Each structure stands twice: as structure tokens, then as C-alpha cells.
């Protein structure tokens, strides 16, 4: 929106666009929810064969080694065609973590299957008793000789029931003070004996996440990432990147197009009161694009974002909800209809989109927790 493509970038954009048009199955375009693995993974494999599955990974690990501008172009073009959301725990989270903190053996074992799409990863952070207060987590990993024994319970684990491996925060020192100092970062094979996984249905009707029970699960000691009791630092190291990823303005731009479709269909587009709110929301989408470009520019110049990246996460997630409020308003009486609503201007799954958007201010640290972080660590307010 603000950045103009350099000639080579414009060429790259056209190459991506043309290839996506030719290769992304029509049935996978414009989906509101993430399709199940049987439908989605063949597309993952297609991207992988093309060499485009990991634009942000260095080429030594099988990534594209793309520049940040190329990465933005990729996400813009994927959003433009309505590509489905891929499982990102491997590509965006454990992959980069292993590159920075993993042993050579861990990299060799785990990175190639992420690129190939033969292994799906899940993130085991939250527990029934440890949500916003994550440091109070109590899933125990006890070191017994050459292995850990894991006992406990993880929850809200996205796609755990489809996953092969989990990277988890586990308590290795129950006495440690502060509590963060007794947490380690462990890779757990979800096919191990003693693991039970129960999918949980969301208010949007899908089963995106699960709970995972560990009962005496044996995990080899070499599956520890980094040092013992140093897991908290590792989990936090890449948080800035994660927030940048979830703040991509393309989600908001897609929502804006859906609102227009429904507003034309219902006729509310002619209402000046609605127009004013749509203008305000649209201006905020422009502001989000500016914040995102600004953040990318800083990252481009090797300045890490740190806790201020929470600003982006809050602004992007709350704006997405405002947009979805407008979406159900535009849909009017159709809003509670289940499934796609077909109109002369296009088809939108209004209720699913609206319900899905409830999660964004909760996952990855709720808006309230992000505000606490900003107040203390960026605004330096006293505790």
C-alpha cells in the first residue's frame, strides 16, 4: 500500500500471481476456516515442491532465503487469491527456534520434514491452570537418566489431533523462583505411549484445537532444546516475529472486501451512518498497513522489535473484530445464517468469519496481557 515494488519485485509478484492462479485448487480459495489435513496438505506439498513453502527460511535449511519485501509480496499474493491458512507451528515457530537454539542433530532430524510437510507440529504452552499466567504451568518433566518422564495436561493446542510432534514448555524445577526459571523447552513425539488427545469444538463450530494428556510419557533427554530450565527465554525469543506475522494487514483487507460485498447486497451501503463507520474502519486498515510496513522496515534494518510489537498485535486484532462487527451489521438479518451466504455481489461465510474473529484478541497473549506488558516494559509504569 505504501511501498512501491522495484522492477525486480514487480516481476517476482507477477511470477507468484501467475503460478498461484495455475496451481492453487479453486476449492481451497476463500475458505473462512482452515481445511482439514487431507484437503490442505497436498497444497502444502505443492508449495514445498515449488520451493516456496518457507520464504523466510535461509536456503541452507531448505527455505527460499527471500528478502523481506519478497516475503511481503508472497503473503499479499497468497491473500489476494484467498489461499488457505497453512499450519504454521513448524514453519514460523519451532523451525526458527531450532535454527537459533537447536543442536545439529535436532536440526537434521526436524527441519527437513517441516519443509517437506511430512510432519505437523503443535505448540504446547497453555494449560487448564495456566492461561494468561503461563509461568504457573505445572506439566512436569522429570529427568531420569537418559530420558524425561512427562506428566500433565496441555490445552487450547491448535491442530494437536492432526499433529505428529509438539514443542512444549514443561516444569523441570518445581521449587524455582521466579517460576520462569524452572521451565524447560521440550520436543515431544505425539505418537509416544501415554498420550491422549481430545479435540475441542470451538464456538465457530470447527475443532481447531485440542487438549492433550500426558501420563508417564518417556521423552529422550536429547529432545531438550537449549539448557535445562532455560525454556522461558527460548519461548520468548521469537515472540516479536510471531506478533508481526499475526498482524499482517491482509486479514483486515480481506474482511473489508467481505463487508463491501454484504453491504451492497443488503443495501446498507447507501446509509450515511454506515458509510461513516466503514470509512473509520477503512482508515484504520490503512493505519495498520502503515504500522506493519513501519515494523517490517525496522526489522529490515536489523532492529529487533521487542515488547513494542504488542502494539501491532492489539491494534490488528481489535481492528479485525471491529471489521467483523461491521460485517454482521452489513449482513443484517442474514448474519446468523450458517455457512456461505450467496449474493449477487459474491458469497461470504459471515457467521463463521465473525465467530472466528473472537479468538484473535485471546490467542498469543490476550489483549489485556499485552496491555500489561506495554504498560510495564514500554511505558515504564510502576508495578
Amino acid at each position, binding site marked *: 500500500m505504501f511501498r512501491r515494488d522495484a522492477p525486480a519485485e514487480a516481476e517476482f509478484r507477477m511470477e507468484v500471481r501467475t503460478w498461484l492462479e495455475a496451481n492453487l485448487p479453486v476449492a481451497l480459495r476463500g475458505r473462512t476456516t482452515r481445511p482439514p489435513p487431507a484437503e490442505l496438505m497436498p497444497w502444502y506439498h505443492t508449495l514445498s515442491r515449488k520451493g516456496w513453502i518457507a520464504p523466510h527460511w535461509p536456503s541452507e535449511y531448505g527455505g527460499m532465503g527471500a528478502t523481506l519485501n519478497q516475503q511481503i509480496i508472497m503473503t499479499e499474493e497468497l491473500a489476494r487469491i484467498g489461499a488457505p491458512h497453512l499450519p504454521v507451528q513448524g514453519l514460523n515457530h519451532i523451525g526458527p527456534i531450532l535454527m537459533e537454539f537447536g543442536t545439529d542433530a535436532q536440526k537434521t532430524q526436524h527441519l527437513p520434514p517441516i519443509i517437506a510437510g511430512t510432519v505437523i507440529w503443535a505448540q504446547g504452552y497453555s494449560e487448564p491452570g495456566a492461561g494468561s499466567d503461563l509461568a504457573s504451568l505445572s506439566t512436569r518433566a522429570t529427568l531420569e537418566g537418559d530420558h524425561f518422564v512427562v506428566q500433565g495436561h496441555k490445552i487450547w493446542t491448535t491442530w494437536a489431533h492432526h499433529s505428529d510432534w509438539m514443542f512444549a514448555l514443561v516444569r523441570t524445577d518445581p521449587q524455582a523462583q521466579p517460576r520462569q526459571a524452572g521451565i524447560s523447552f521440550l520436543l515431544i513425539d505425539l505418537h509416544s505411549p501415554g498420550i491422549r488427545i481430545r479435540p475441542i469444538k470451538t464456538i465457530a463450530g470447527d475443532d481447531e484445537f485440542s487438549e492433550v494428556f500426558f501420563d508417564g510419557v518417556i521423552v529422550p533427554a536429547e529432545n531438550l532444546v537449549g539448557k535445562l530450565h532455560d525454556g522461558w527465554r527460548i519461548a520468548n525469543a521469537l515472540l516479536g516475529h510471531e506478533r508481526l506475522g499475526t498482524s499482517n494487514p491482509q486479514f483486515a483487507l480481506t474482511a473489508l472486501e467481505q463487508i463491501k460485498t454484504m453491504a451492497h447486497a443488503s443495501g446498507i451501503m447507501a446509509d450515511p451512518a454506515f*458509510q461513516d463507520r466503514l470509512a473509520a474502519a477503512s482508515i484504520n486498515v490503512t493505519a495498520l498497513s502503515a504500522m506493519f510496513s513501519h515494523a517490517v522496515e525496522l526489522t529490515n534494518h536489523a532492529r529487533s*522489535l521487542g515488547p513494542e510489537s504488542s502494539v501491532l498485535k492489539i491494534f490488528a486484532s481489535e481492528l479485525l473484530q471491529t471489521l467483523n462487527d461491521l460485517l454482521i451489521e452489513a449482513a443484517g438479518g442474514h448474519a446468523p445464517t450458517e455457512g456461505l451466504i450467496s449474493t449477487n455481489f459474491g458469497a461470504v461465510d459471515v457467521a463463521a468469519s465473525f465467530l472466528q474473529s473472537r479468538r484473535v484478541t485471546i490467542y498469543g497473549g490476550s489483549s489485556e496481557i499485552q*496491555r500489561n506488558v506495554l504498560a*510495564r516494559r514500554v511505558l515504564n509504569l510502576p508495578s
Partner: protein
Amino acid sequence: MDLHLTSEQTLLRDSAAKFIAAAGPKVARGFREQDPSFAPARLRRAGELGWLGILVPGATDGLGLGLGLGLTELALVLEQAGRGLVCEPIGLAAISAAALGQGRTPHPMLERVMTGVALVVPALQESAFGDDPLAPRTQVAGQDGALRLTGKKMFVCADGADGFLVSASGRDGPALCYVARDTPGCTLSTTQTVEGRKLATLSLADAPADLIPPHPSSQNAVDALHNLALIAVSAELLGVMEKAQEVTLDYLRIRKQFGKPIGSFQALQHQAVNIYIRSEATRSLVFQIAANADAYRIDSAMAIAAKAKASEDALIVTQACIQLHGAIGFTDEHDIGLYLKRAMLLSSLFGNAAAQRRRYVAIAGLTA
């Protein structure tokens, strides 16, 4: 988030910060209801520093005075002016100089405006509602060299002004004209604002004027100046809300109630974060637009978006700052109210947030 600046841009910002160290709330208070409500010597100083000719290309002004810099530099200086509650109309003078210098031959007033010896300000508004800037009711008639203006301009920052850049409708659509304050047929009636400065209604009855041609790269001189005005005022609003926020954060750290600094209470922390999010959003928006647009060819939708966002956020932020101060914030004695009043004035200029949004619907093609 910090801005990514070149070393020259950082130097410019630092010198602007030095300039405002001599301004601030105390000085702004002193100028309330004065005539003019600023120090002419300080405006000349801004001219000496090159800020009034910041957008004027040095090679083409015939004087070598212009810095020929871009919108980022303009925004950096005006952000500081907003922070310091600077009363000298640096932004209005700088964008007027850009317009006076944009033709093949610069207007004779250019040198005096760039040096701060004279002041020219835009006169573009015609109603409180917010009008289409490209369809002014003010009419221009006659041939180039003998133009006459008739109409009425409102909300003009006429304090200390020697002339005006007036938008008017002519045979070929909207035209930008220069009219001198002391010219026959030009009368001003002024109103006092709560902020301390005055706004004027400029009545033009067959007043002689000069045509200001557009810059070669812009479609229309009125559109270009209007967009420039929106960005300039947005940058100043940004500075106002940032400084008000800093003053308020300091207060939250030292003011104690219930035996603790009030900034330790979560309800107030979240309020503080909310205003921080607003100023960060406006900051990214203003500076991303500035970094990617040519001063004479700003995309109207972007300029409107910036002014809508900055106007809304500055009012919300400065109001929250009063609330976070409690009773002391409601007193005239405390400075925090000065930021709210400056935000009131600037957010209303060239159309408030609601007026911008009304225009944005059509310009951005929202209903298309």
C-alpha cells in the same frame, strides 16, 4: 516504534527539538490573546534555519534558499512544533512557500515568506461542515494579470498574515490565487479561539489577486495545497498528542494515592496503553505516507486518512490525558489543558475527522 531516519534527518529533528526547547507551554500561555499570537522574530529564526523553505527546491527558487527536502523532513519539524506548542505558524508558512515557489517563475512573495519576514497562509475552507475543496463557492474572474476574487473564506489562521492563498472556482475549475491582506476589497473579521489564537473570516469583494500555477508534477494547485495542509496539520497533531502523553505518563509515575503511584493501577495502565496505541498508529501513518509521497503529488485518500486519524486520535488522547490527571487536569493553571485546546484547534482546521471521513467515502471509492 522508532523511525528509521538518515543521519541528516536525525540532525534536522534534533535542531527542531532545540528550537522548541525555547517554546513550550509557558511561552504559549504568554501569547494567548496577543496580536499577533506569536513572536515574529521566532518565525524569522525558523526561516533562517531553512524550515519555511524546506519543500522549495533550492535550484528553482532563484534564491538558493530552499532546502528542497521532502515530506518526511517537513513532518519531523512539525511534529516537534506540535510537541512544543510552538505558536509561530511554521507549517502553514512552509506549505504556502511551497505553493508560491511551484510555478515556472516563483511568486514575488516567496523570498519574504521563506525568510519569515512576511507570512502567507492558506485560506481554503468555506463552511463549518467541511466542503469539497475542489468546488469552492468563491469565484475568480478576469485574465491572468488582472484577476479578481469574490467570496468568503472561513477559519483562516490570519494572525500576523500579510497575504493568503485562496481557492476559487474559475472558468477552468478550481484555481489557487494569492491575495494581499491590505488589498482593496479584502476584509477580515476575527474570532478568538479558546486556544489563544484567532481564526478569521476573509471576505473578498472583487479583490485583485495573482494566479498560482500548479507544480509541473501536480494536477491542480488547490488539490496539492489542500493535501499538503492535511499532512502538515496531521504531523503537528501527532506532536501534540505525543507530548501530552509524556506529561501524563510522568504524572502517573509520581502521583500517589492509596499509598502507591497511581500508574501502578491496572485500570490506569490500560488507559495509558490505549492512548499510546493511538499515537503509535497516527505516527506510523503520517510517516509512512510522508516517506512514500512527493510533496506536490500526495494521494488525496492518504492525506484524508492521515488527517481523519490524527484529528480523532489527538482529541481522544488529550481528553484521556485530562482524565488521567484528575481534578488538576481541569484547571487552567495546569499545562495539560493547553494540549487539549491545541488539539481542538488543529483537528478542526481544513475539516475535522468526521468531515474527512465523509470525503474519504467518495475519494477512496468505498461504496464503489
